[in-house]
């Protein structure tokens, strides 16, 4: 029964906002808005769980359900791996009508067998979707039996879509890692500079913009949870000295769980923007030094920050004039709504509005502080309203996910992808230069003038453009 545990997930002692709430408010959950039939948008809990776990690249991710859950969604996110590609392989029991009538347990067992024999993965994650949850497949028991029989960890992820939102799915996935994965293996080597990164999924390779910085400081990512992750490394996360939660309030519970069980402190940070990146590196150095890292770490960190900030500032110079005071409308989720704001401010841009539909109250307070009283904070904006604002010229560019891109493009307004399908990595010092480059390209493209030209039949009275 997922419900009681789901409710518990919204009691988060590690989250100050959560503790400030009354009992009743806490039960509602932090970012969980009630879903309105006919006016809801966004992914389900299964989606959220898969987003959080699937970047574990060498594991098999088996979706137990009818075809919709995996057939419509596999290989659709740009989380990247530097090695194994098994995580991108769509695997599903593709339950048929007869499977549902007879129960899907035997098929699930055979599917696990097939996967272990064919791919020999270090672990199999089994995602329970709505239908097997409804008909009562004992996935737990099948996984236990299969794990024993095939001598491979087989981990049930009980986050069927109908229990709630994507954010809840993130949390359930964090719980699975804490309960079933972390602490089950021991690392071969330990260093005094071992860290966990939590909530960084290496979308478009963003982890790889941060890792070289850490490498230069001698900081080792013991467990990346879960971008470009490996099962063994995640299982060793209990041996790190500090956890950094990257842009993900939903994963704070996991970091806090690791702290409670293994005494590993954590902090929240972001790698979007120069200031955020430097702050994150300083925090890491501080925590590591306190935990016994070489004393010169802080000094080396400062040296690196000075050099990298100077380099980034130089690289940004050519873009500054075109970007200065340009107005951005941000429509994204959760923590990105504030972490990206500070990056945009560093580029001299103005954020005229940002969505807080998936953000926690804490996120909202931070945004308010950052962007000032004039800017709009809005929840879910109907496409029609977004269209009206863009056509009215309230922003120079929309930054959002793929689903809203056409609202901007059809209004003939520049647009930049900030969500999971983006092709570019925007993290770290290099990332902000990428971001500036992309924004500059989008804003200065001559195509906007072209597509706004009136049609010849509409402009019969207007003089034709003179040849140059």
């Amino acid at each position, binding site marked *: 029964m997922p419900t009681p545990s789901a409710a518990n997930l919204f009691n988060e002692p590690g989250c100050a906002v959560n503790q400030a709430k009354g009992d009743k408010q806490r039960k509602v959950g932090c970012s969980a808005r009630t879903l309105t039939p006919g006016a809801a948008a966004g*992914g389900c809990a299964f989606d959220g769980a898969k987003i959080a776990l699937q970047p574990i690249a060498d594991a098999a991710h088996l979706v137990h359900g009818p075809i919709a859950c995996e*057939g419509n969604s596999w290989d659709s996110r740009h989380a990247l791996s530097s090695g194994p590609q098994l995580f991108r392989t769509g695997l599903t029991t*593709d339950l048929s009508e007869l499977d*549902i009538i007879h129960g899907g347990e035997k098929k699930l067992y055979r599917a696990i067998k097939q996967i272990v024999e064919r791919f020999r993965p270090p672990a199999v994650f089994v995602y329970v979707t709505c239908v097997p949850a409804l*008909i009562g497949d004992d996935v737990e028991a099948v996984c236990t039996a299969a794990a024993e029989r095939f001598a491979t960890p087989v981990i049930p992820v009980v986050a069927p879509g109908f229990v709630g939102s994507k954010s809840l799915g993130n949390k359930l996935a964090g719980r699975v890692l804490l309960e079933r994965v972390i602490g089950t293996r021991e690392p071969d080597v330990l260093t005094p500079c071992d860290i966990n990164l939590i909530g960084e999924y290496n979308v478009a390779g963003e982890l790889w913009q941060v890792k070289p910085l850490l490498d230069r400081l001698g900081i080792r990512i013991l467990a990346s949870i879960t971008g470009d992750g490996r099962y063994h490394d995640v299982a060793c996360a209990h041996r790190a000295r500090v956890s950094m939660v990257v842009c993900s309030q939903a994963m704070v519970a996991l970091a806090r769980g690791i702290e409670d069980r293994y005494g590993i402190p954590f902090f929240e940070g972001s790698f979007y923007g120069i200031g955020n990146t430097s702050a994150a590196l300083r925090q890491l150095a501080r925590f590591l030094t306190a935990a016994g890292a070489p004393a010169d770490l802080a000094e080396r960190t400062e040296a690196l920050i000075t050099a990298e900030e100077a380099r980034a500032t130089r690289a940004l110079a050519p873009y500054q004039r075109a970007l200065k005071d340009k107005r951005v409308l941000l429509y994204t989720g959760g923590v990105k709504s504030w972490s990206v704001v500070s990056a945009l401010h560093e580029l001299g841009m103005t954020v005229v509005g940002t969505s807080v539909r998936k953000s926690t109250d804490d996120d909202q307070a931070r945004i308010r502080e950052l962007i000032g009283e004039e800017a709009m904070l809005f929840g879910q904006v109907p496409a029609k309203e*977004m*269209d009206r604002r863009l056509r009215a010229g309230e922003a120079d560019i929309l930054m959002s996910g793929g689903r809203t891109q056409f609202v901007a493009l059809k209004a003939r307004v520049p647009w930049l992808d900030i969500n999971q399908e983006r092709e570019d990595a925007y993290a770290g010092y290099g990332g902000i230069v990428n971001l500036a480059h992309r924004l500059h390209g989008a804003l200065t493209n001559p195509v906007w003038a072209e597509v706004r030209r009136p049609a010849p039949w509409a402009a019969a009275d207007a003089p034709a453009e003179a040849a140059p």
Partner: protein
Amino acid sequence: MSAALLATKACAVKPLKVSPALGGALAFLGLDRALPLLHGSQGCTAFAVVLAVRHFREAIPLQTTAMSEISTILGGADNLEQAIENIFKRAAPAVIGICSTALTETRDDDIVGDLKLMRERHPDWDDLAIVYARTPDFLGSLEQGWAAAVEATIRALVPPGSGRKRLRQVNLLAGSHLTPGDVEAIAETITAFGLTPIILPDLSGSLDGHVADAHVPTTLGGSTIDAIRRMGHSVLTLAVGDHMRGAAALLEDRCGVPFRVFDRLTGLAAFDGFVAELIAVSGAKAPEHLQRQRSRLVDAMLDGHGTLGNRTLALAGEGDMLVAMGRFVTELGARVPVAVAPCAAPSLAHVPAERIIVGDLDDLEQAIAAAGADSIELIVANSHAAEIAQFFDIPLMRAGFPIFDRLGAGHQVTVGYEGSRTLLFALANTFIARGHAPAAAAAPGATLPPFVGETDHAPASSC
């Protein structure tokens, strides 16, 4: 034609199948001022929207009844009613097309009965058309869902009774394998004979990629409810794709409109048959530009047969796509050693492949690996096959759904004389770009192993 092999494995690997509910929703997107609604958890809709957006590169209006575990247990009628009411108030669509999902079909509510009661409670919905299609995810793939939605639309909106026939009006039932560009090309041909087609569903009106003057929360363009209501007055139904047969037969049963099913409109013989039907029903001569187009296709076939003859292709996709593509290339002398379909369908009997597998893209991969990568010169499949093609270093021509790594998926035209010619050139140019195939690989009879030359002067490169 070989018998289809059904994969018996428990785990689908690299699925080729998408959900029928998505297929149903796509069909509803071909109705004007429509808002499709998936009756399931919100993830059912979210995944479908993302995939359709990536394919069409258009905003996709698609809503959800946002079923929770509680509403699933207690029954989904309340959620459905709320969803319809919210959509009705916010988006004011002409039609809401509801698709069931595996979740609601497993619970098996009496939706038809519930809808009737809702209508009684909501007299303000009187002008709102509501169509309910049963598209459980555990039964079939995109084609099956599409067909179910089209049939449900006819049942809900076309009044029974034969009525007075309009001599120049025909119905065009467009299958899911046709792009918006295809539908437009077919409609133009019909119109050229002085006939007026009522198209169902008409993606060429809604998903043709146009920039509207203002945002609308529903589809903009497509089959209108008024036109659909008049389908019973047509003199003939032209159904394109075997999966449209049921809908055509339904129209005949209901309204006495005779029908012809064209399993494909790609290729000379296939389109000749269609044009012959148009000549017969209109009594008009084939317009000159069409005659010219036919002559151009014949010329292209003469120019291209040398390049295409004896080539080997592996196909993966929904049944009617396999029929259109497979038959066209084999008519040009190419061979299809293997074709993979996501589920069994009557159309598979007409796929001219040496081996037909009902399975997934991993079955395609295994089949190519078993035969040797050299034995296949081109893969025709959706974008998910890109990695397989890259692995074997075989070119991939993207066809079917979804196509998310190329622009213009909705505008590829492969029907009619012109579309066939475009396809022929695209195929031929892909082969030309790759250079000559080893002649022995194209030896007649699939059983012969490819000739491997032992010296630098191997005859393998002769042509």
